[in-house]
């Protein structure tokens, strides 16, 4: 196995991390600790998931794949909920949104026969779906929270005119969804021209036919667009209620100004 040798040479790229740390020190960005933590965490996490995936490949059990993906969803929800810690029920909302997004998109790909029901496809694609949905969920959640506070006078004015909470918050929801979806839409537009997406790069380096890599990349992009939209919309519709009472009042503790 040439695994060790590969890891050894991969460690040489730490030199590039040193450049980032040097920049942080030189410009007093105060990020060296964060960079250090990120490097160590990414190494440990990737190594661990490598062994886990290897193990699951060995099991050849679809149940184990589902369990791993469920674990990923819960971890994503936990990460996202921590970002928006002061939003009530954030964990449940994100877990539900990301879970539904993953099941819907992967399920569709399986049902249409676009990908086979094997760990080799489901784990990496599931990881991408869950990761991207989590980012969209975090963006949507924090944006709604910030806007309900900042635009409290407008929200309150709408309520005072007989609007329901949903109606009062709808301009905020709209902006939050746009903000969450635009990065991916832009990435999809420019893909292949400005950058080659990770999955495709990996396949080409691993020796796959570039056209086969393109086929899979197209599937990935459309899948991500679908799943990110589902996650953002679900987070939006589920989370705004946390800021209001059933009598269409802004909840106590949602501070203004």
């Amino acid at each position, binding site marked *: 196995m040439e695994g060790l040798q590969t890891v050894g040479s991969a460690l040489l790229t730490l030199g590039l991390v040193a450049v980032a740390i040097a920049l942080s020190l030189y410009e007093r960005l105060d990020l060296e600790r964060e960079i250090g933590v990120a490097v160590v965490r990414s190494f440990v996490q990737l190594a661990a998931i490598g062994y886990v995936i290897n193990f699951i490949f060995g099991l050849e059990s679809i149940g184990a794949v589902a369990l791993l993906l469920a674990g990923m969803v819960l971890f994503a929800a936990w990460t996202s909920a921590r970002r928006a810690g002061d939003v009530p029920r954030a964990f449940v909302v994100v877990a539900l949104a990301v879970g539904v997004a993953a099941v819907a998109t992967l399920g569709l790909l399986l049902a249409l026969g676009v990908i086979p029901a094997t760990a080799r496809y489901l784990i990496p694609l599931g990881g991408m779906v869950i990761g991207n949905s989590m980012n969209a969920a975090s963006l949507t959640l924090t944006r709604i929270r910030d806007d309900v506070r900042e635009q409290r006078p407008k929200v309150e*004015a709408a309520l005072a005119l*007989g609007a329901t909470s949903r109606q009062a918050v709808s301009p905020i929801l709209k902006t939050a969804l746009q903000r969450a979806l635009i990065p991916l839409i832009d990435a999809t537009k420019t893909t292949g021209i400005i950058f080659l997406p990770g999955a495709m790069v990996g396949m080409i380096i691993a020796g796959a036919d570039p056209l086969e890599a393109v086929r899979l990349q197209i599937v990935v992009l459309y899948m991500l667009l679908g799943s990110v939209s589902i996650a953002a919309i679900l987070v939006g519709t589920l989370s705004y209620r946390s800021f209001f009472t059933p009598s269409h009042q802004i909840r106590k503790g949602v501070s203004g100004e």
Partner: protein
Amino acid sequence: MDRPKIEVRRLRYGVGGTEILAGVDALVPDGDVTAIVGPSGAGKSTLLRAINRLVEPSSGEVYLDGEATGSLDPLELRRRVGMVFQIPALFGASVEEAILYGARIAGRSAHAGRLLELVGLDPSMSGRAPETLSVGQQQRVSVARALALEPEALLLDEPTSALDEAARRKIEDLVRELNARLGLTMVFVSHDLSQVGRVADRVVLLAEGKSVGEWEREDFFSAAGERARRLIAGRH
């Protein structure tokens, strides 16, 4: 006195252990302009928001025409009792859209031009973007927006505090004029006693979340004017 339009009884409201309203009583006679005055932090704005249930009181009752507001649908209540805030907070691409917001979501029709005239603005303004208007004009648009629902009463939460002297006087005149022309019952929150003298028929004095007393305007200044002045200036 006939049955009051709005009656507030032993109203309490707290947030996280702090009592903002600690037992408020107040009467708002039908067709009058009732001022709620007091120092900042007395609970004036919260009292106003408890009347149209933008906040839910922890105990006590508000009656509208003798009916407990707690048993009314909050959306229907807010259509019956309009509100104008410190900041106009208009939304929509045009003045017309801003004015018709409440009427549109209620599925009612209203005439933006006529409402603009009612608040002393030129009907030709209806196509303009709200943010191109002066703050004083925007505040009058926000009055028109509340009137579009033909409310039975109007709550005004320090509607002139963001305005300069000239615009402030125009809003005061508008309040008197709407009261005279439409017979509209109004509740006007203010911490400016000279404004109270110009606008109100009746005064409710609030301090530290409690009602200190209620007077007709003429009696208020002789009976409690000095006390109110000291409370508002922060000297007890």
